[in-house]
């Protein structure tokens, strides 16, 4: 166990967060942030999630009493949405953003599910930013975090905000694990943000930070992160 000496110990998620930011900063990404209590527009509509999409059900999303059209964000992708909108209003055609933020899901908790957890979310846009770039960036990222010898795969998936959509899987300690979702930004998302899909294209990705910490360090229960227990600060 790490000695609790003169210098204070960091929360494992902070250690990981800084590490993730460092990797993406090196790749040219700008750190971004957005509200945790968000409008439905930035959490859903702008991201091409239709009004009737099952993800918008109360069973999954926290809506706010007496605050119509507000939700606790269900993913950190609201940050990418806001940054794309900013790109459009600034007249920029290129950009790359990374954010790690707390997200919320209305669900029963257990060792692998929490009502709050952290998500890594990012996007990169330009005239020619393509799927091969997505593969390059995410492979670099996971190999840095999990080790150069870890294997990374991209498998078909579906999300309303990307087309094509993929899931990133990593082989860690001999086991394949789902790490992240992503894909090429759906033209509706670009349009909603005010960008022209004929001129700008790009990729977006998002996935759990807590999950990486659990896999990387072998932490058995996601709830440990939020108990305020210093026995967790071992690294």
């Amino acid at each position, binding site marked *: 166990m790490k000695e609790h000496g003169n210098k*204070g110990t960091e929360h494992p998620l902070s250690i990981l967060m800084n590490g993730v930011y460092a990797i993406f900063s090196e790749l040219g990404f700008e750190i971004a942030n957005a509200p945790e209590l968000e409008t439905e527009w930035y959490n859903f509509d702008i991201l091409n999630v239709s009004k009737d999409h099952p993800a918008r059900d109360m069973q999954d999303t926290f809506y706010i009493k007496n605050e119509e059209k507000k939700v606790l964000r269900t993913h950190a992708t609201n940050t990418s949405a806001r940054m794309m909108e900013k790109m459009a209003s600034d007249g920029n055609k290129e950009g790359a953003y990374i954010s790690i933020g707390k997200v919320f899901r209305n669900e029963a908790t257990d060792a692998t599910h929490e009502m709050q957890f952290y998500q890594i979310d990012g996007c990169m846009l330009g005239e020619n930013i393509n799927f091969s770039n997505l593969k390059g960036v995410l492979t670099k990222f996971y190999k840095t975090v999990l080790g150069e010898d870890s294997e990374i795969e991209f498998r078909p998936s579906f999300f309303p905000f990307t087309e094509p959509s*993929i899931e990133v899987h990593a082989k860690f300690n001999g086991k394949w694990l789902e790490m992240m979702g992503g894909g090429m930004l759906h033209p509706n998302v670009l349009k909603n943000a005010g960008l022209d899909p004929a001129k700008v294209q790009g990729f977006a990705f998002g996935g759990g930070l807590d999950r990486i910490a659990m896999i990387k360090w072998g932490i058995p229960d996601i709830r440990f992160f939020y108990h305020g227990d210093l026995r967790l600060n071992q690294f």
Partner: protein
Amino acid sequence: MKISYNWLKSYISDLPEANKLADIFTYHLCEVEGMEKREDGDVVFDLNILPNRAHDLLSHQGVARELAGQLGIKFNDLTPKYKVPESKPTNLKIDLQTEKCHRYMARIVRNVKVGPSQDWVKSRLESIGQRSINNIVDATNITMYDSGQPIHAFDLDKLAGERIIVRPAKAGEKITLLSGEEKELKEGELVIADEQNALAIAGVKGGKVAEVDANTKNILIEVANFDPVSTRKTSRKLGIPTDSSKRFENDLSPELCSFAMLEISVLIAEIGSPERSEGMEFQEIVDIYLNKQKERKINFSTDFVNKKLGANISSDEIENILKQYCYTFKRIWDNFEFIPPVLRLDLVIPEDMVEEIGRVYGYDKVKLEIPKINFKPVQNEIFTKISAVREKLLADGYNEVMTYSFTNKGEVEVLASASDKKFLRTDLTDGIKNSYKLNKLNMALLGVKEIKIFEIGTIFLKDKEQINVATADKKGIAEMSLDKFIENYKLKIENYGNLVPRTSPLSPNFKMWSQYPFMTRDIAVWVGEGVESNQVHKVIKENDGELVVRGPELFDSFSKEGRISYAFRLVFQSYERTLVDSEVNVFMEKIYSKMKENGWEIR
């Protein structure tokens, strides 16, 4: 969706072996959640069909067509071999009173004989985890798992007449389901009714009143298409997700009804009346289909596909993929005009074709390339401030904690929470206070003389959210906004702080703590001058047993009258049980006697 290998094989003679199929699914279609080898030699896959392919892949035929297309092998279309029964005139009337039913097809079949199904029917259903009920119900289920189209059969003689009404439910209208359960409907929820009763909740579940039973002689077969949103809302509200509602929720093509009506008719002709198949009477199909699904065209080019994928797929390769699937398309040089198959409601825009081609071509074949763009990142102010505050507090010996955003009182309340903590925190103080208490109890275990902790986190006030900083130590709890903290401590925020990748793969593994209470023992000895503390440490260490989780730690030493006193602390804890005094005392006694052997005096 459970998919049987043998069932697929009836459509593809050259089907690769099961393990190979699992890889094809994983890398080119969807996740394989399970794979079960059955006693009869069949292999059953549990496929996690993606929502955009639920239109066509919640079915054996759909999966078989997809595989045949992907592998470029022959799909055996069985329809030309169907012995389609001759049909007689009908008096059946369909009264469609809602737009939420996009198509309603029905036909009457007389002189069926309800009984147990044939063995091949039973084994097909059992292979995918379904129970055989009787030949008629089984025929509807087999057709659904084969084609993807939900089908319902009513006992015609239990209906008020040969007229089916598809209408919104009246407020408070009740229906007893096949399961015997009674449900009250909300106004506007869709029902299938005769002139007297609601017979079924449209697309969700059938009712008891017109149930097919052992005495049923004449049936009405329904093959319909219901609105996805309305079906989902009804099924969710009533808490009855069914194989039928799951399919309608994902939006099926109304065109599928025609295929399915043909298939169920052929199947009923084959198994609907084992003893007197000659006597069955198939009446004409009544088909209400007002807004026919329109044909779509997607134009895309090879350049477009490559620009999105960053690949070098040739026009010939694209053409080959489209040909393998027997898709309808035209190619003019490097441009394609593509007409999606009627069931492929997911193919709408050119980007959909990038995915269609990309996943078949293989995402693994697309190279890795780290991009360069002309973009100058700007330093993020909030992150920089948080980093500066964290670095300062860590340097001052404060340890970082995180606590819950949810609490039981506050200014912002969430709706329908699964937990009893329905409010968002208005401060960090409550959370850090509990954290302080918890850690205080564990001080000996942590090996610290005092607890110093901090949290940086978002709080939620009526009209805004704000990042606060809270600290707790023996002087108490202090909390303020991030900006206030920076101002108070005059922190410089020009730099990102300690932003280096500290996540090498060699970092140590987490060590789980014990859930059982720990026990602390202090031991102090007088030793002669010249005896180093590490000599005493060594003796304790060699004799303290396997239950020590922390220590021996020197916490006090002083010299007096030519002697030195060393005080060490040991923390005992078991991962399996609560320790009792007597077992710890055994180790302590052993340490005491070793001390004496060295001529040291226990204080």
